[in-house]
């Protein structure tokens, strides 16, 4: 990514305020120049820091040799071909899709009512409930992972992809709750009151008024939840049985050494992420505009 900022987007004329008038014009210009140089430098550095590694990741997926050293030896699609022939990897990919989809469904089923309850109702123990639900967002995943591992072991559950799903859902409900709760907070309560006032039942109000107005937040939360689950390691690490998810598969191959095959997977994931992001931007754009 390059710096897409032209000078006219930048406020170079900061000398409007009275304080500036005291300095000479030259000093002022030098100061402005220095400040701009600093900011452009920082922004350029941060963008380079963020995107060079991703560029490297993708570039080497096309490298013709096994080595990951610069300069690249040539361009080939060998690693992509190998990847498509790698049955373990494809199975892990499928497992990840299954886990992420199921976990996302669960987070929505639990998270949306939880957000509604936190925003709209008062009940005893609400404070504790909120703390518990939101805890996994701040807590290292490893704690969710091991605490559920111990519980499953105690009640004699065998570890499987399903235990991973339960773990992911538990860890990611907080994502849905925060997103949906934030939207509900911005949704005037009078909408629901107006709906009830006009004769709608609780369910009618939810489906005809509340849901359409928090729809984009739910879609956004679902996509985020899916992505995070798809990428999850700390919880999966402790809760998976024989089956591997994609990140766990990559993790285990990393132990054996680096291969451009992983870069190829990475490049594909980057492309997939871009698709998801685009989807989320398109789907969550609020068409209704300002509230009436």
């Amino acid at each position, binding site marked *: 990514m390059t710096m*897409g900022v032209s000078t006219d*987007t*930048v*406020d170079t004329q900061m000398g*409007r*305020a009275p*304080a*500036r008038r005291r300095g000479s014009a030259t000093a002022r210009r030098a100061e402005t120049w220095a*400040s701009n140089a600093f*900011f452009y430098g*920082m*922004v350029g*550095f*941060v*963008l380079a*820091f*963020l*995107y060079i590694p*991703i560029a*490297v*990741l993708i570039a*080497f997926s096309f490298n013709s040799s096994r*080595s*990951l*050293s*610069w300069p690249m030896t040539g361009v080939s699609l060998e690693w992509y071909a190998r990847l498509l022939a790698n049955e373990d990897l494809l199975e892990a990919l499928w497992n990840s899709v299954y886990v992420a989809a199921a976990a996302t469904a669960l987070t929505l089923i*639990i998270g949306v*009512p*939880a957000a509604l*309850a936190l925003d*709209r*109702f*008062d*009940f005893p123990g609400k404070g504790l*409930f909120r703390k518990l*639900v939101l805890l*996994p967002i*701040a*807590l*290292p995943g*490893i704690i969710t992972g091991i*605490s*559920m*591992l*111990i*519980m499953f072991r105690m009640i004699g559950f065998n570890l499987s992809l399903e235990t991973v799903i*339960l773990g992911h859902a*538990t860890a990611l*409900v907080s994502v849905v709750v925060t997103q949906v709760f934030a939207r509900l907070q911005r949704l005037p309560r009078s909408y629901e009151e107006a709906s009830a006032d006009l004769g709608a039942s*609780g369910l009618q109000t939810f489906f005809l008024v509340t849901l359409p107005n928090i729809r984009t937040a739910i879609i956004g939360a679902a996509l985020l939840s899916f*992505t995070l689950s798809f*990428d999850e*390691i*700390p919880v999966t690490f402790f809760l998976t049985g024989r089956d591997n998810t994609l*990140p766990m598969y990559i993790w285990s191959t990393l132990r054996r050494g680096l291969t451009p095959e992983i870069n190829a997977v*990475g490049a594909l*994931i*980057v492309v997939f*992420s871009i698709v*998801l992001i685009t989807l989320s931007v398109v789907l969550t754009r609020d068409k209704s505009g300002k509230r009436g």
Partner: protein
Amino acid sequence: MRLATRNRLSSGGVLSLPLVWTFLFLFIPYAILFIYSFWEKKFPTFVPAFQFGNYLELMVDPQYVRVLLRTIKIAGLVSLLSLLLAYPYAYFLVHKVKRPGVKLVLYMAVVLPLWVSYLLRAYTWKTILGTQGILNSFLVSTGILSEPSSVFLYNQTAMVVTLTYVFIPFMVMPIYAALEKIPGSLTEASRDLGMSAIQTFVRVTLPLSMPGVIAGFTMTFCLSFGDFIAPFLVGGPDGMMIANVIATQFGAALNWPLGSALALVMLVIVLTIITLSDRLQGVGRGKYA
């Protein structure tokens, strides 16, 4: 039926599933973790007990304290480095970029990497910093180094760089939000009253953006604090962090009670930091008139 009762009933319907779930998969596991930390390891299994042996071991054996201090140090450095990079970036976005389109693109540029696999983002630094990696081959080919050096990878610096790379978006987002929320009239008033741009920044903008800084610091600190993937990928023998030690107790070392005790220590530290951060943000959080 009274109106209040009716409300309570309908809220009960909405609530039951989340409540049951929270109880089953959050409350009970944490409770078990707590109880487990007092159990004893009696090979080949663990037996229920109520003793402080695990906690005693954590205090007596210097390696645990050392790992804990190292983890705090690394998480602190990551947060600091992220702050130094993120603040100017967010400030530039809010105060210098005028076109909304450009602002959005530059903001999304920071958030986007979050959608790309965390593991792969950490992994790519392994390929960059390694002896066979890009950095070495670049330095050798340009003649700066005569032969590839192994100093870049497998140490704490590599971990700090990698974790900063991975978690910096969590610093930019809250700072950006805090800066964006400050009414432009406040900085204008400050300039109008004769303060220079730098004075205005130090006396007005910086204090008002502190809640964002604190939130960002807390996020990056807690996330780095609990990480066990970066140490595994780019950390050396002196790069083990507390999460790695916990993972080991549940794996090779097979001492779950000790691991649980360690996890509880971690939990308490993280919760303390979050509570502290909430307090601090509460102090700094004011309504703009």
